Structure formats: C-alpha cells, structure tokens
C-alpha cells in the first residue's frame, strides 16, 4: 500500500516544497517498507514527473485533465480520493499551504481519515501513529494520534532540508470522472508579485514594525531583503495602518512562518507577534528600545536606530557576498 503525496507545480515546474513533501513521504515509506506514489494534476511534462524519483517517488499517478490547470479544491480532492482508492493507500500527504490546506480536509472528511494539519515531525509509530504540530499559534506543540485506518497529513513547508538523490519515477496516467460542479469555482484573474519571494516559502525574512515610523522608510528593509534574497514581512499595526499589504502580516491573526532567519526591525515583540514567528530557526532583533520584549526571544540583538543599523547591515552583507 503505497504512500500518496500530492505534488503541485507552477506552470509545469515543481517547487522545492513539493520535493520536500515527496522526500517526507519517502522517509515514512522507507521505515514501513512501503513505496511512494506522487499524485500530479494538470499539464506538466513527463521529464518533470520522472524527476520526482530524485526525491524518493517510485511512481506517479498523473491526472491529465487540462481543466486541472486551474485550481479547484473539489476537483483536486476528487483526484486524491480516486488515487487513494485505486492503490488502496492508507497514508496521504499534502503540503500545509494554500492549496494543500484547501484539499486535504476534504479528502480526510470523505475517507473518514483522521488528519494532522501542519505536521513538523515524522509519525512516531511506536505507540499508535503520533505526529507533532504547532498549536496556540506557535505558543506550544501538540502530539496528535491518528486512530483511523486511513491517515492524512499536511506537512509544514520548510520543516526538513531537501536533498536531491537519484531515481526515476514511473508514470501512470489517471482518468477521473469529473462532473461540472467540480469546476464550478472559476478563476477570473491571478495577480502574482513578479520576482518577489513568496513569504511562506522564504528561507530568509526581513520584517518591519511600527518602529519603522512610516511606509516611506521601508526601502531600507527592501534593500536588505534584496541583498539577502529574503522576503519581506510586517507586524499587525503596520498592516492595519496600510503601510504594507495584509499578506505580509505575520503573527497570531496573520500568517505563521518558519524561516531559517527572521530579522525583526522596529518590532517590540508582543506575544501575538511572537506566536507567528517563533518557529524561525534564528531570530535577529534590531530595536532602539533596550526594553523591547522581543530581545528575550531573539538569538542576536542590535540596539540602535533602524535607519542607521539596517543600511550598515545591508553593506556588511554585500561585502560578505563579494568576499565569499
């Protein structure tokens, strides 16, 4: 009974996080003596699919219907449900991102499968099937046991380092009998920031708070982000004041991120903000207030004015890159 993993591509190219999901599935499969079948949707080239073997997929089930080129939670769920039935899968994995989070709960409800949303560990099968996830918006972790026969996991991106191996996956085409209602959600327009790194996928994040004083000062953070190859984020007051768009807001009522490096500039570190970012591996806090609570949650701290410190840091990063 292979382990199924839903992979997602952008215009035919798989992203790093999909490789991470395949590799995660392969790790579980290996410990159980099973194989991995990736499930792909829509128009994607054969060589892209066979290359999923590099990350541990033995097989690919490819639902080729071109209507799947636009995302529909209902249709994608149907593909995964049909695939699970076809190969009698007991473990199904998607990413914990905007796509996986819309699809996986549908699949779980349909198959009466227990689900762990946003897994940050491999399942522990010594006593049941226990997976760790973050709860209370990052203030704690919970170990969840799935007791049903079929199990669904959404994997938090950026949890495991991706390592490319060798291998080539077999492709089987899959026909799914859709009805019109599966595609009732029609895409009218897509607006993607070109060139910018999506916050949810970024390894490095530069974030600003009220201490930045106003949107006109954001250029210093953007210059640092560009130099580092980082995404930009902000605190809630900044998004509420419309200094920055809502999708950059991280914290308890915004997004939760887990980058390798989180640089917080002019953010005091309210508990609600920390909740969204304390999964970051390394936290740097730049603040001119020595009493800012964020320093207590930081790995590295710099006491100083953002408009002076940040350009200096940008210059230091530039110098470092030239010398390495």
């Amino acid at each position, binding site marked *: 009974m292979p382990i199924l993993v839903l992979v997602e591509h952008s215009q035919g190219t798989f992203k790093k996080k999909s490789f991470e999901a395949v590799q995660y599935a392969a790790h579980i499969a290996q410990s159980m003596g099973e194989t991995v079948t990736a499930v792909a949707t829509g128009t994607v080239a054969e060589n892209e699919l066979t290359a999923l073997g590099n990350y541990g997929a033995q097989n690919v089930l490819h639902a080729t219907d071109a209507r799947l080129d636009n995302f529909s*939670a*209902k249709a994608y*769920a149907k593909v995964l449900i049909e695939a699970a039935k076809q190969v009698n899968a007991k473990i199904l994995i998607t990413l914990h991102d*905007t796509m996986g*989070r*819309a699809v*996986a*709960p*549908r699949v*779980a*409800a*349909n198959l009466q499968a*227990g*689900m*762990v*949303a946003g897994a940050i560990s491999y399942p522990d099968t010594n006593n049941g099937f226990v997976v760790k996830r973050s*709860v*209370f*918006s*990052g203030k*704690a972790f*919970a*170990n*969840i*046991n799935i*007791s*049903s026969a079929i199990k669904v996991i959404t994997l938090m991106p950026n949890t495991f380092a991706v390592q490319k191996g060798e291998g080539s996956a077999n492709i089987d085409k899959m026909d799914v009998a859709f009805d019109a*209602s599966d595609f009732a*959600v029609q895409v*009218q327009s*897509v*607006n*993607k*920031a070109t060139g910018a790194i*999506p916050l949810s*996928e970024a*390894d*490095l994040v530069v974030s600003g708070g009220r201490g930045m004083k106003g949107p006109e000062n954001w250029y210093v953070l953007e210059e640092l982000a560009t130099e580092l190859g980082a995404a930009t984020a902000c605190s809630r007051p900044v998004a509420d004041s419309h200094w920055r768009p*809502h999708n950059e*807001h991280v914290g308890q*009522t915004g997004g*939760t991120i887990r980058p390798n*490096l989180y640089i917080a500039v002019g953010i005091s570190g309210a508990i609600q903000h920390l909740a969204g970012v304390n999964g970051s591996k*390394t*936290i740097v*806090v730049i603040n001119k207030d020595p009493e800012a609570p964020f*320093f207590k949650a*930081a790995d*590295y*701290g*710099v*006491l100083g004015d953002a408009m002076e410190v940040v350009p*200096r*840091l940008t*210059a*230091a*990063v530039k*110098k*470092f890159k030239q010398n*390495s």
Partner: protein
Amino acid sequence: MKILVCISQVPDTTSKIAFTDNNSKFNAQGVTWIINPHDEWYALVRALELKESGIATAVHLVTVGKADVEPVIRKALALGGDEAIRIDADPEDPYTSAVQIAGYAESIGYDLILCGKESIDYNNGTMGAMLAELLSMNYIAFATKVDVAGSTATVSREIDGGEETDSCSFPLVISCQKGVAEPRIPNMRGIMAARTKPLKVVPAAAVNSLTNIVSFELPPAKSGVKMVDAENMDELVALLHREAKVI
C-alpha cells in the same frame, strides 16, 4: 439567501498557555474566552454586511460546545445575526465538529457558509473544507474579499505569492481572513437585543473522533540573546554565517 457563520470560542490572545494532567490537557483556569478573531472580525461581520445591504435574508450563527460556550455565542449575537445554534457536543476533534455542523446545516439548507480561516487555539483551518466535502459544496479558502451579486459570489483569495479572484455560484463555503471586513465593536443596543435572540440547543449526532491529543509541549526556551554592537554589522554577518549557519 441564508447564511450560516461558524463560531468557535478560543482563549484570549494574551492568555498564558499552560497544561495539566501530565501535559495532556489545556489548562483553562483563569482563561478569558473570546470569539475566534477570524470568525468574528471577518466571517461574521461580512455576513452582517450582506444582510444590511439586503442580499442576505437570514444570518445564523452556529457553534459546537457545552453550555459553557453560551456567553461567547451571546457576544457574537450582540454584533448581529438573527439566531444562534449551539450543538450540544464536546468538540473532540476537527472531524467530529464538522460532522455536527454539517448535519445541522443540511437540515436547514444554507446558500453560503462562512467561517474564519482557522481558530487561533488549534490552528487546524479544516472546518470550511470538511463542511464543503460533507455537504458536497464548493469551497474557497483564505478569502480576502467576498462580494455577492445575484446567484454568484466573487471572491479574492490568497495564493502563494499573490492573490487570485474566483467566481462561483451558490451553495458555497468560504473561509475568511483579513481583508474580508473590518472588525466591529458591539453597541449597547446590540448587547441588549442579543439577550432575547433565540439560542437553539441541538442534540449531538453520534460520531467517533479520528484523532486525539496525546500530549502538549512548550517550545524550548531561547538560551539568551547575544548583543552585537550597532557599529559592527560585519560581526553580525559573521555570526549568522559561522555560528547560526543561516547565510
């Protein structure tokens, strides 16, 4: 058009998170309960706006819980809504709560079901999609804008690195986040009116949970901040490279 808004009660955002019973249960002692912000600020307020503009004919609020959740559902009614429904069950896991709400929703027949993108306690964010599946409805997740014209909803939603605008006919389930509406504060008239609004208690359906929480853990404490001189950013870069190994 009838709208159902799913409401969850959660600990206030400033609550201290602690556990009892050998770290297997959340310690609710001294916790102030609030309406889950995503349910209140976005899903509920947008439903009320649709009623005020004459598009919706009825707005019902539903929650799953024992009698102790009634103060929070009354608070929600103080913002607006015609009636509330409490399904008399312990919310054991996301699946059982979805089955409870889906059963009730099916008996009434709603055109639009709104919920928050996730609760701020367990952060599953699975309610909308599970309801949609159990009710064979379409689902749009993480909406940032919800407009209704005739029998069609036009919804902007967050996607990786941007935004997409979708349209879909009813019935439909939408999970809402920031952007959908602006938070409101209940006024005295609303609070008075909420006292006499109907709060129906519906018996629980028989359903078994599929997951259980084995234990909780608190994140390990940071070992202490290392301060770097503001004049010496070369040192910070060196530390991030050699010690933290992140650049």
